[in-house]
């Protein structure tokens, strides 16, 4: 059993970052916006980390979970359901869909999994538009139902709670048999199998967990933009940003996506100020650089250079 001192030391990095974010959000509405985006990115990247960082499966279709959450939120709110319950419902449905997609798609390995999940993003969009589902291309507008209820602080704090929740979940998974199994199957799928790991079950569980909070975040997104349509809530950009943040921060670590989200948002803001229009170009090249020279991300770099920080970088 660790004593309280060790525990505090280990989690102090995390606690520090969250405290900073809370403080920042109280300064002004402009900062609130930034904190909102950082937390949104944190939630989706931390979730992706479970399947990508621990499980080694690059889910390019992660953005679909956000879209599902947004649509479920919209459909329920239109029926008169409380928006906050609708967000939770969005998360639950998103996980359910993850289960259904997972039993099919998780049989695929490596590049095939990436191709397939990448293709789900346009595919779901085409399905909604083509099948004229939930309003088709025009989507669902929510002004009538939510106009007065809009509270930016509430939305940001829901994201904060989600982020803390997924962080705690990540820590628990990492130290649990599931965590060991996932990391094993990431390293060598066949050897994991002959060592007793039920790879199918582990992958599906990880996939379901990874879909939960993006679903909730989708509901938050829908609440913020008031108009849910395929173009706005199913956006490959989030998949890309989530993958980038996980890689940037440190794939497979708990604090990695958190650091990654903060660094990414800061970089994005700086680039927008000094090199507008070039952000994606630079980020694209950045990812190539990370993959080539620092595949373990910021956490990896810090661990190698500053050995004393190791206990903080969980």
């Amino acid at each position, binding site marked *: 059993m660790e004593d309280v001192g060790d525990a505090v030391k280990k989690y102090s990095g995390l606690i520090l970052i969250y405290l900073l974010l809370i403080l920042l959000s109280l300064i002004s509405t402009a900062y609130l916006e930034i904190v909102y985006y950082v937390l949104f990115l944190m939630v989706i990247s931390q979730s992706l980390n479970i399947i990508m960082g621990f499980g080694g499966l690059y889910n390019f279709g992660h953005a679909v979970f956000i879209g599902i959450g947004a649509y479920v939120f919209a459909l329920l709110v239109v029926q008169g359901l409380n928006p906050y319950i609708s967000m939770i419902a969005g998360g639950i449905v998103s996980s359910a869909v993850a289960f259904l997609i997972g039993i099919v798609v998780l049989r695929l390995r490596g590049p095939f999994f990436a191709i397939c999940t990448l293709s789900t993003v346009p595919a779901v969009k085409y399905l909604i538009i083509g099948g004229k589902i939930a309003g088709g291309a025009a989507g669902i507008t929510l002004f009538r139902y939510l106009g007065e209820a809009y509270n930016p602080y509430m939305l940001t704090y829901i994201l904060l709670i989600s982020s803390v929740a997924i962080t705690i979940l990540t820590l628990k998974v990492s130290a649990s048999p599931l965590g060991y199994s996932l990391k094993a199957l990431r*390293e060598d799928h066949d050897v994991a199998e002959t060592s007793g790991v039920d790879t199918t079950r582990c992958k599906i569980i990880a996939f379901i967990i990874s879909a939960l909070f993006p679903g909730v975040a989708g509901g938050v997104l829908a609440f913020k933009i008031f108009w849910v349509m395929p173009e706005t809530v199913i956006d490959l950009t989030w998949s890309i940003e989530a993958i980038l943040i996980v890689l940037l921060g440190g794939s497979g670590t708990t604090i990695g996506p958190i650091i990654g989200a903060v660094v990414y948002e800061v970089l994005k803001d700086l680039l927008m100020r000094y090199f507008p229009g070039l952000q994606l170009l630079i980020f694209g090249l950045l990812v190539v650089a990370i993959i080539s020279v620092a595949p373990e991300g910021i956490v990896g770099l810090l661990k190698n250079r500053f050995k004393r920080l190791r206990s903080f970088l969980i």
Partner: protein
Amino acid sequence: MVLLKVENIVKRFGGITALKDVSLDIYENEILGLIGPNGSGKTTLVNVVTGVYTPDSGRIIYRGRDITRTPPHLRCRMGIARTYQVTRPFNNLTVLENVMVSILNGRRCGKISVEEAKELAENIIETIGLSKFKESPSKSLNAQGRKRLEIARALGAEPELMLLDECLAGLTPSEISEMLNTIRRIKSERKITILMIEHLMHAVMNISDRIAVLHEGVKIAEGKPEDIAGNIKVAEVYFGDRELALKFVKR
């Protein structure tokens, strides 16, 4: 009693038949050596037994149960563990974590906590002689370390049957006798049955209770080491020199 029964296994890969109607019995508490030239199907047989490959026909029976359709992870939990000829550690995990994986997913899957697994892993690593490296990433181990880790990881699953695939390849003579002693010790202390694929004649003749010989997917001989050494067919196929083979049998 017969622990594992390999019954008329046929395994084809496209145009090549790797295993042609192979049958084999492994008795409890014995060390069975499996020898044969390269490409004779030894590793394929191990892959079929562990469930990595599904045979085209034939059955695998473990303790009387037909496990031919059982998935690999369940076979491991039943008590069948293996090592890999070309070592395959979980690279980015530490030595300790490597062994913990099989403990948490082996015989005691679901019934053991992470702390207990860690203790057990430390014991196994001690037995195997890798304690110095327990927190090191497994990709940093040398050849002997990796071979030991393969065995440690197999032990983690608490198997009744261990399939060792050329665990002596690439070791120096002193490392080889260390490893053989370790294997003997493991076998007697933990009551494990062992199937050992090996090319080193003096080692396998020395340690095995019985030997089976595969050649081009066919079992051409099975019996005590002395008998195998004296077997004309085996000599023709493998040793080339019958007299030399007889010298290695030390019983």
